[in-house]
């Protein structure tokens, strides 16, 4: 392809991405410039309370997740004890629980009619459930459980990159263990810690399922926006959406400033410290017991979900443990056409959006890294943009933009089968984009030149040399995108139609009908498919 053609394709891709991810936000910004709505937003205490709640819940989630994830990472990366490898993998398990599934698992486990509450109630002969799983504490519990994994994985990756001679140098200079950690290790893994903090903050700010199910009267901005939209006050919903977007971007910029340079790249050579066996028997036993205890605690939600999914409708009333267990729910799920449909919907919509996101990311990687087109920074920025904004913001923006017929930019897509895959695609772009841009950057240009010198044409080089090398990044990015789409609730709840309703919506309506067994069975299916896809994506 000639240089000029590449520039044209680059411009085309930039325009397409701008239309997909930037234009809807601009539509929201314009619609939010509405005097009445602005006055309503700034005048009502409830709006400020929701915005503040979003911020402090997110900051508290970061603190809690760090408090759990960072020490665990040190334990598993630096020390050796029986079961370290198995436990180290189990500890990352909350990742396979899509947000909504994790929330209902917590509901069945710790909720007022969950296993723990029933057991406590029976044990002490209480007339009522001992607690209600509601409000900020419940939200934080779920966030801590699902988000400490970010700190755990990022910190472990940072520690694994650490050069063992750095630690030995500190020791040889007279530093004890705590001084070494404080003055050498933590500064060196800071980029990882900040990365995890940003991810946790953004996820928490955009979190919808936990506040939606457990919030009760406690509103955060995401639930507030959806409630306002359902009430039909669209201009106010626009203002709220914009306010959340502003907070997200401000938070992102502030956190970024603490990141510093990735100095490890500059001097990083040598080998990571190997895990040290814990020798003192008492401490060794303690570490092992703590590790296994923690793993069981982490697995309880998964087990709960599996158990509840085996309870047929109406069979479990006041007993601590369900009296009847069978596969009735699964039979209904797979044999009743109306119940199978959400599953099929989610699968095809996730597949289509992931495929589209991969194609766009491949094109972007090629244009940005290899052809270095003039608009490369714009393309890269547009790919990353959806990551910087909570899912609710995009859901609302797409809902507004594509409910008006004004070609060529605006079409009525809301209510059609196209809107949900489009929304999933927008959310998937940062995941596939980041993975493939990184993959393209790591390519050794000499390999493509070698292929060319051996007589391979453009397509043969792409198929036999370039794509095989991009495969790990591509698989990782695509599997994350697929799982995110499969478990999505934020965009779905705003944009679904009865015909295209995905699994998460079906779980919510099953819960509303008190069909907890069916909801749990859907959750198990979602969990298993997510785990399989992530497992395939992580294979080297």
């Amino acid at each position: 392809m000639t240089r000029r053609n590449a520039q044209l394709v680059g411009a085309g891709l930039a325009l397409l991405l701008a239309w997909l991810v930037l234009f809807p936000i601009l539509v929201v910004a314009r619609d939010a410039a509405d005097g009445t709505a602005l006055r309503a937003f700034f005048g009502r205490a409830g709006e400020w309370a929701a915005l503040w709640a979003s911020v402090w819940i997110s900051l508290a989630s970061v603190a809690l997740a760090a408090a759990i994830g960072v020490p665990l990472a040190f334990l598993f990366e630096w020390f050796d004890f029986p079961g370290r490898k198995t436990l180290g993998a189990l500890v990352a398990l909350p990742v396979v629980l899509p947000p909504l599934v994790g929330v209902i698992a917590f509901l069945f486990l710790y909720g007022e009619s969950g296993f723990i509450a029933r057991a406590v109630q029976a044990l002490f002969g209480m007339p009522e459930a001992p607690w209600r799983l509601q409000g900020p504490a419940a939200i934080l519990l779920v966030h801590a459980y699902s988000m400490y994994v970010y700190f755990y994985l990022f910190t472990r990756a940072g520690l694994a990159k650490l050069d063992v001679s750095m630690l030995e140098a500190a020791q040889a200079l007279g530093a004890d263990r705590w001084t070494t950690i404080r003055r050498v290790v933590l500064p060196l893994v800071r980029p990882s810690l900040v990365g995890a903090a940003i991810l946790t903050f953004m996820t928490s700010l955009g979190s919808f399922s936990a506040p939606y199910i457990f919030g009760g009267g406690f509103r955060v901005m995401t639930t507030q926006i959806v409630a306002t939209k359902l009430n039909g006050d669209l201009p106010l919903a626009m203002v709220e959406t914009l306010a959340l977007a502003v907070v997200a971007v401000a938070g992102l910029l502030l956190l970024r400033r603490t990141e510093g340079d990735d100095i490890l790249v500059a001097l990083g050579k040598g080998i990571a410290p190997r895990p040290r066996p814990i020798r003192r028997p008492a401490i060794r036993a303690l570490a092992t017991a703590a590790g296994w205890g923690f793993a069981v605690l982490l697995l309880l939600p998964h087990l709960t979900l599996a158990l509840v999914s085996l309870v047929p409708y109406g069979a479990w009333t006041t007993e601590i443990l369900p009296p009847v267990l069978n596969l009735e729910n699964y039979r209904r799920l797979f044999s009743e056409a109306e119940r199978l449909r959400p599953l099929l919907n989610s699968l095809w919509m996730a597949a289509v959006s992931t495929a589209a996101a991969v194609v766009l990311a491949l094109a972007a990687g090629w244009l940005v890294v290899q052809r270095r087109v003039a608009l490369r920074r714009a393309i890269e920025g547009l790919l990353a943009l959806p990551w910087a904004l909570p899912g609710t913001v995009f859901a609302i923006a797409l809902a507004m933009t594509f409910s008006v017929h004004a070609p060529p930019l605006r079409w009525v897509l809301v209510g059609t089968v196209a809107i949900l895959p489009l929304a999933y695609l927008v959310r998937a772009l940062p995941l596939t984009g980041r993975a493939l841009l990184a993959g393209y950057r790591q390519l050794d240009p000499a390999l493509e030149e070698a292929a060319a010198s051996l007589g391979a044409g453009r397509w043969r080089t792409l198929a036999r040399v370039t794509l095989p090398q991009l495969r790990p990044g591509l698989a990782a990015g695509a599997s994350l995108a697929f799982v995110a789409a499969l478990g999505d609730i934020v965009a779905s709840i705003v944009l679904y139609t009865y015909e295209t309703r995905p699994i998460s919506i079906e779980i919510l309506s099953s819960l509303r009908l008190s069909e907890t067994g069916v909801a749990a069975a859907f959750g198990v299916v979602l969990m298993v498919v997510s785990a399989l896809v992530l497992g395939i994506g992580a294979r080297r």
Partner: protein
Amino acid sequence: MSAFLEVQAIKKRWAHTVTVGPITLDIARGEIVALLGPSGSGKTTMLRLLAGFETPDGGRIVVEGEDVTSMPPARRRFGMVFQHYALFPHLDVGENVAFGLRGHADAGAKATEALRLVDLAGFERRKVQELSGGQQQRVALARALAPEPRVLLLDEPLSNLDPALRERTRRELRQLIKRVGITTVFVTHEQEEAFELGDRVAVLNAGHLEQAGAPDELYERPASLFVATFVGRANVFRGAAARALARDADLVVVRPERLRFATAGLPGVVRERRYTGAAAFFLIEIDGGERIEVLAEPDAATVGDRVFVEAERVIRIVENGR
């Protein structure tokens, strides 16, 4: 002369088959000792045992009469320069050098002094990433010396420098260490480096100390075939050939420069000639198939000549069963 640093039968077992030691070695105050050996010989393990990064499975390490065998590295007061320097990338040059001086009232002044010692005065606020390889090495040295350690340990100190720089740095390093007067142990796999930098060289092989001694002692009176062949070039003669050179010997070694062409001696044919300028190496195929190397005047012979080779000086080796 009593030893300043005593290594007493130190031993480290890695697996059932891989063992380092027992090694015993006495090092005098202010002495520079090279640990020389091929990869896998246990020289790095020895250095790490001295530093305290590995715990020995037997034996003792004593400094100035104090047993430091089970003392953690942080309390040993041994300075170490790592192979890749291990400079802290998040600290600048001055902070790196002052790292080991925490608690000293005059840490800043001492860091400045250490940097001046390695000729890097005024580099305090530089980032370590901006320095050249040679400068990084000197910062690492300054950092190790700043807390005034009892012993200096160097892990392959010159391996990260390009060859042109290496020779000059070697001489400067030796001068610096001698000026400071610190007892030093360093690891290397290059004979030349060991000879030029070390007062004494300890040759290690397969986890055992083969011989420790001054460079000329190792070269002229190697204690084993390994030392003879690892340290310098060597022609090995066994059996009848050995007996032809030295009476009652089963195994002798002759350095190439100690062989010369003569009118009688071992008969052979010149197969190759490698010209090095001042002299040339001649590869001689002795009748009977063995090949030996002779260092002689460049015009002493030409390829294809039939020659006789005689030895000026032979080294007898007594094989000790290992």
